[in-house]
């Protein structure tokens, strides 16, 4: 059924995204930012969503969270969380689910905290908005416990955001995201604006908190090193489509889609000096993708069939799926939905 069933057949996914389409309206036609994305997120796992800027990874996250703003719009698909399709719920119902079941750790903590409110009041707002008014003393203890969990000292309780460092602000955002014990968190480039050492501290905080509370996470980013450290599986996006999904080890050891191969070959390391593979970036007009495979203009292995037929995700290894004509559809696995 899905591209992950072979790995975790026993479990139904916590979050199941099918054929998600998010388009941006422009005077010259729609930009197909997310164009038919399927994703499964299983209990307790971390799934990386990677790709170059403009590939649609953040837009996909906003689509899952129902936070797409005009000129963007969700054109179709489904986002099932705990058996309910978020796309069919009312605005109010979605608002109830956000924070309580599905929370976001945003990209720039600097812009997502209210500069005029103390840290405690902001966390309190999230709790009270969903659970209703409650005793001050109990709330205080709960917020202090959240701060402790993310490694912040008690005195942060009374501070304003501008009094905090970037790493501390990011940890306040983590505290808010876990305040209502959601089952799924989405981390959108949550550490990419931080210095290397602080990035490590925040990344490890996310990891520890997630394990402690048993939350599943979709981690969006472009730093493959960070992905290698943090996630269990990786979905690679290119120009609005998922081109490969694989367990993290398989993706690094043997990426199958030519774009995923390029991505892995272009990762610099501190362990060896090697010639890095270079490339040009997305080259087609996102309003008017070529017929056939989305990667054909940059693909070193392009064949005639790639110019006419769009490849579907096919199983190429245990838990590993690639959308590429290089790989024949195994007969036994032929029943994938479309």
């Amino acid at each position, binding site marked *: 059924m899905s591209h992950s069933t072979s790995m975790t057949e026993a479990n139904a996914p916590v979050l199941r995204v099918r054929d998600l389409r998010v388009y941006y309206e422009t005077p010259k036609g729609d930009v197909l930012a997310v164009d038919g994305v399927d994703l499964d997120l299983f209990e307790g796992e971390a799934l990386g969503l990677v790709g170059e800027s403009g590939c649609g990874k953040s837009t996909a996250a906003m689509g899952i969270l129902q936070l797409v703003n005009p000129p963007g719009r969700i054109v179709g698909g489904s986002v099932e969380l705990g058996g309910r399709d978020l796309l069919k719920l009312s605005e109010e119902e979605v608002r109830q689910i956000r924070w309580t079941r599905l929370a976001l750790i945003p990209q720039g903590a600097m812009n997502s905290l209210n500069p005029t409110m103390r840290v405690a009041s902001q966390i309190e707002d999230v709790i009270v908005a969903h659970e209703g008014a409650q005793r001050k003393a109990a709330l205080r203890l709960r917020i202090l416990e959240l701060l402790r969990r993310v490694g912040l000292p008690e005195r942060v309780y009374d501070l304003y955001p501008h009094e905090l460092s970037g790493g501390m602000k990011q940890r306040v955002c983590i505290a808010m995201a876990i305040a209502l014990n959601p089952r799924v968190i989405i981390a959108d480039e949550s550490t990419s604006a931080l210095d290397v050492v602080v990035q490590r501290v925040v990344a490890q905080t996310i990891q520890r908190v997630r394990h402690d509370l048993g939350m599943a996470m979709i981690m969006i980013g472009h730093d493959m090193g960070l992905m290698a450290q943090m996630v269990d599986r990786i979905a690679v996006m290119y120009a609005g489509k998922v081109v490969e999904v694989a367990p993290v080890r398989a993706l690094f050891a043997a990426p199958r889609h030519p774009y995923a191969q390029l991505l892995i070959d272009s990762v*610099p390391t501190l362990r060896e000096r090697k010639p890095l593979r*270079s490339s040009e970036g997305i080259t087609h007009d996102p309003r008017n993708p070529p017929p056939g495979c989305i990667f054909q203009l940059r693909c070193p292995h392009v064949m005639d069939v790639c110019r006419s037929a769009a490849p579907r995700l096919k199983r190429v290894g245990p838990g590993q799926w690639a959308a590429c004509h290089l790989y024949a559809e195994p007969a036994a696995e032929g029943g994938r939905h479309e």
Partner: protein
Amino acid sequence: MSDLLLEIKNATKIYRGRGAGGARHETIALQDFNLSIPKAPAAIVTIAGESGSGKSTLAQLILGFTRPTSGQILFEGQDVTTADAGRQREYYRQVQAVFQDPFGVYNPFYRVKHVFDLVLDNFKLGRSRAQSRDLIEEALNVVGLHGEDVLRKYPHQLSGGQRQRIMMARAYMLKPKLIVADEPVSMVDASLRASILDVMMRLKRENGISFIYITHDLSTAYQIGDQMFILYQGSVAETGTTMSVIDRPHHPYVQLLVDSVPVPDPDVRWEGEIVLPPDEELRTTSGRGCRFYPRCSKRMDRCQAAQPGLVSVGVDGHRAACFLYEEVHAPDA
């Protein structure tokens, strides 16, 4: 005439201002910085550090956007801050810059060709249309781009990698001896970075252009850099060849930094969690002592009393500013 292309002697930049309540305060953005690049062979010198380390201040000093509070910056033996107008103009031709944001430097209303026309005009390079076209074509070829097609495009029609390579081509057209590249790849996607790093290496190797490569990213520096300086809060924590600094870091900060770069291998994951005391994240500087004292796992009492100078810790000028190594090795002259 000096054998050195660029020599920076004890450059210090202090910003003075008034903080909350009108109290005077000083920020030492860069302290007693020394560097020299020979005329030949060309080299890529990396200046690495986190935000607030002083790496961009250094770029601004070299490019003449700001003057040092004390110290000297010599280009081919001439002090650039006191040079006359003619010599400064020559300096601005010989030292070119490529900045972080590959979009911000373009005027979105003009086609790419305009970038080249401005330079040709400004430095009176092309004597005829044909000659101008040849100069542009040559510069584009050097960065792996071709022809009229690129020149007719608007900036938004190019990828970040292409925009940055065009900036390299623009710089190359002036046949500079030094290019200051301030975070040239940090806003460009990983898969596109390689093309820019590749251009830098080719310009060095084939055209003898040296680079000051300013970055927070050690991995790209490791791929292309010759010499390296790691700055921490305005001071050099460690310097040497790129390989020795990264393969054998000595300063506790540099060790922490190298260890924190995520390894792109799922089988080599971080061991242990590091904890930064919150006040130390806030960078409350500690008076006269070592800037890294509050975060250092190996701190000693004397580190609070005075700032350590650079001492030799290995071959080829590998030096670290840490008291741990002072007794073991004799300090460099």
